[in-house]
């Protein structure tokens, strides 16, 4: 549970920043090099690397270096924690509304 808690903390911290959310969104379309990403977000490489570091620590993205190019990609597993919660919420609403359909049918029959 404590590990889980720590991982949630780092995920929410990572997602609290608009630049980092935009990086996630961009990587959703496919992997990209750090220098391309930095250019796209109009940011100096050192400060952009800090954002990449936060996302990596949270486990939201992974990166590997080939030659002089560091490439980033999404790690979908950690994002799944929040994703899962929303899925649960959808299931709750779907289930409670099916109850309501039945209730309304009963009430109309009276």
């Amino acid at each position, binding site marked *: 549970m404590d590990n889980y808690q720590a991982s949630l903390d780092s995920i*929410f911290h990572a997602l609290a920043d608009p630049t980092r*959310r935009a990086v996630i969104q961009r990587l959703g379309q496919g992997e990209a090099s750090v220098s391309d990403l930095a250019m796209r977000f109009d940011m100096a490489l050192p400060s952009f690397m800090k954002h990449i570091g936060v996302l990596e620590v949270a486990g939201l993205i992974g990166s590997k270096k080939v030659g002089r190019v560091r490439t980033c990609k999404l790690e979908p597993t950690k994002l799944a*924690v*929040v994703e899962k919660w929303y899925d*649960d919420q*959808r299931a709750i609403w*779907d*289930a409670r509304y099916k109850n*309501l359909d039945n209730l309304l049918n009963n009430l109309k029959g009276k």
Partner: protein
Amino acid sequence: MTAHLQFDFVVDKENNTMTVKREFDAQRQLVWDCHTKRELLDQWFAPKPLTTKTKSMDFQNGGHWLYAMIEPAGPEYWGRMDYETIRPIDNYTAFDGFCDATGALNPDLPRAKWDVTFTEQGPRTLVHTVVAYQSAEALQQVIDMGMKDGMTSTMERLDELLVSLSKR
């Protein structure tokens, strides 16, 4: 049974908001009553296999609904919905909250704002609900709480149930 009823569930992760749109095959007054009267709420609000039990209901501006969702094995999850504005039979806004059986709110947990709108669509009624958390951190606290009190495992069983039902 009734023909296909619209059901949209949209998540806005940047704004920590869920929007639920659902059509019901009934007149608006009846759908409104089901959302606002305790004896009717008790018959649908909790997803199966949980059931709903109202302890008190004061449906007016500044009033609140105190209820529990109860598992078949016994555990109860208490909640209260504090009504902020009510415009029968068009809209109400409220704040949800986690509390104990006396209705004392858990001060450590954030509350989401609910904005619920009822619209006529011919013989049907559309219910449009927006549930908004104040921040990503607020939402995180709610997720953490769900894992601590066992609600999550209940929901996982619910997931399994829904999967098995949809396969029939």
